[in-house]
């Protein structure tokens, strides 16, 4: 390395060194302030609180949980609740999106118009507003426990949807419903809002994927005797998915992050329990928010990994 080269690179080294110093100073100042403030508030540091008793109840938990359980169990229950709503909403959104994507490309003007109307309306109204609407307006329209709607063994009222589990059938018991599996109205509202809103974006992604399949493919399909729905399923969809998968993966990640709006209606997910209840009860906002960030980042990473595996599987099946 000659003097000329070094002379040219020198400003770069200097700037980067200064940058490191600046970042280090900012971080150390922030940490010092934080320590001082926490000390003044008398709040301890560290994740020891995870072993302490939670002292609150969670309305929906896939693992056993009670007020005597440790905070760690609350975190696990909240994470599972998030995964539940993300999984159900993703599946529902995908189904809606596939129908709407094909609908937007249908030759029939009414089908096309209805699909376009759906996309434009539900894409431009904010997600939070949609979730609030489903929760306060739609579910509020459901009858009270005494007048529950009944479909077979399923009970529907403004306290939720009650599904029989095996022999355990839900029935009205005073002012409440006993037996069966309870699906919270919060979960219903959140799932509906997430599925319908993200369904619009997924529909556009799938539509772009379908359009990316060269017209020659459909023409070739016709010449070998495939047409209509058969051609769509066997020829168009696999190729469309290959193109759409990366973008769709991004949309599922967006859906997972958007599930944090559960905090607005009180669904016990990561944001509501860890970022809300635990943070305020223990006053350890830093640890709680660090957990929140880490959990959402982990969920996004998992989605990215799953999409990557699916992508490689799709590519490996391609003949060329």
């Amino acid at each position, binding site marked *: 390395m000659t003097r000329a080269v070094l002379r040219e690179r020198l400003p770069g080294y200097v700037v980067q060194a200064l940058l490191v110093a600046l970042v280090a100073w900012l971080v150390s100042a922030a940490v010092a302030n934080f320590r001082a403030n926490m000390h003044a508030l008398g709040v301890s540091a560290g994740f020891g609180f995870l072993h302490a008793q939670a002292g609150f109840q969670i309305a929906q938990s896939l693992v056993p949980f009670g007020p005597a359980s440790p905070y760690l169990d609350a975190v696990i229950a909240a994470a599972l609740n998030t995964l539940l709503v993300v999984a159900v909403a993703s599946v529902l959104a995908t189904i809606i999106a596939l129908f709407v994507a094909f609908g937007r490309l249908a030759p029939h003007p009414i089908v096309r118009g209805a699909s376009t109307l759906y996309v434009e309306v539900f894409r*431009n109204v904010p997600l939070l507003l949609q979730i609030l*609407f489903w929760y306060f307006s739609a579910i509020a329209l459901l009858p009270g426990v005494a007048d529950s709607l009944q479909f077979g063994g399923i009970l529907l009222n403004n306290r939720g949807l009650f599904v029989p589990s095996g022999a355990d059938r839900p029935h009205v018991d005073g002012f409440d419903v006993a037996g069966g599996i309870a699906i919270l109205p919060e979960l219903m509202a959140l799932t509906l809002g997430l599925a319908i809103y993200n369904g619009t974006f997924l529909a556009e992604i799938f539509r772009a994927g379908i359009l990316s399949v060269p017209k020659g493919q459909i023409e070739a399909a016709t010449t070998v005797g495939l047409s209509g729905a058969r051609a769509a399923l066997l020829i168009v969809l696999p190729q469309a998915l290959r193109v759409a998968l990366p973008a769709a993966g991004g949309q599922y990640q967006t859906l997972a992050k958007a599930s944090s709006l559960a905090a607005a209606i009180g669904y016990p997910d990561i*944001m509501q329990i860890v970022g809300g209840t635990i943070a305020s009860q223990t006053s350890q906002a830093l640890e709680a928010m660090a957990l929140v960030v880490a959990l*959402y980042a982990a969920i996004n990473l998992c989605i990215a990994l799953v999409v990557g595996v699916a992508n490689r599987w799709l590519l490996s099946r391609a003949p060329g």
Partner: protein
Amino acid sequence: MTSRFVRDAPIDARAAPVAAIAWPWRGRRARFATPATSALSLLLLALCAFVCVRFVDWAIVRAHWLGQSSAACPGDDGACWAFVIARWKPWLVGNYPVGQMWRAWTCFATFALFWIWVVRRPPAGRPGPVLVGFVLLPIAFLILLVGGGPLPLVAPTQIGGLLLTLVVTLATFATALPIGLAIALGRRSQWPLVRALCAMFVEGMRAVPLLAVLFIAATLLPLFLPRGIDVDLFTRAVIAFALFNAAMAAEVFRGGLQAVGRGQIEAATTVGLSHFATLRLIVLPQAIRAAVPALVNIMIAVIKETTLLSVIGVNDLLGAVEIGAKSPDWVGESNILTSGYVFLALAYLAVCYGLSRYSRRLELSS
């Protein structure tokens, strides 16, 4: 059979024949192609008609238009537009002092004029002046609204409703764009530390929900500031918004920068342009123009994201509606809140749909 053919006289063009099938029958063939599609479309038509009739009945026929309290809207058979009309002031400007309302009107009017100017510009025009306008406007608005000096001071927390949504959207857009461009350029820098910091910032922001960032700004950020320095919630929320969307803008600019072919940068070198001259004259003009449609999409997203402010207690348009529905005058039937929600949905729908049409127009012209 001749194997050789030579045309001596050219064939002139002739007019196309009139369609063989008369009009009404052509339409019918398309509309009722197969039994399945015709059944589906009849079903959809019926559904749409049913929903429309019920909605018009609720929203117009049986709606209650006048009144000052929930007494004006008994039951839930008709929309309570009286709620919307009576609460127009807090929804429009929040708690802004009545005596200083002219400042709010000025902001609204200025923005309306600015937007009319933007939309009427030819799509192929230079985006520079528009972007500069978007940066200057929120600065001017904030100075005007908050005041200080000759103008009476108004605390930022008194700004609410649509005014808040407007100011936050503009301020976010104005800060996110320059920061985002700087970060996108930083990701292409030849200095590895700068590249790493920029990449970490963008990937970090993309991995985290916006609501979490807002929660952090609301609860955690004050703890990192030295004792005695207080930054109010409004400012902290705007900063969080700006940084989050700066990361999104950085991704958009990264795409725009990558769209400029490497060959052009080489050609710029061969005509003797330095690195910065190449950036200024060749790369940035094309990158920014390529990024504009996606930037409009970010603006649409920001408008929708402002609703999240209501969750952390900043009184935006959605928050104003909810506060209104809980106020003693109007608390009661859920129908009142629903009317507020429907009104909001229509408002956001109109604004966001209009912007998305504008974005598509820009995209098509480039």
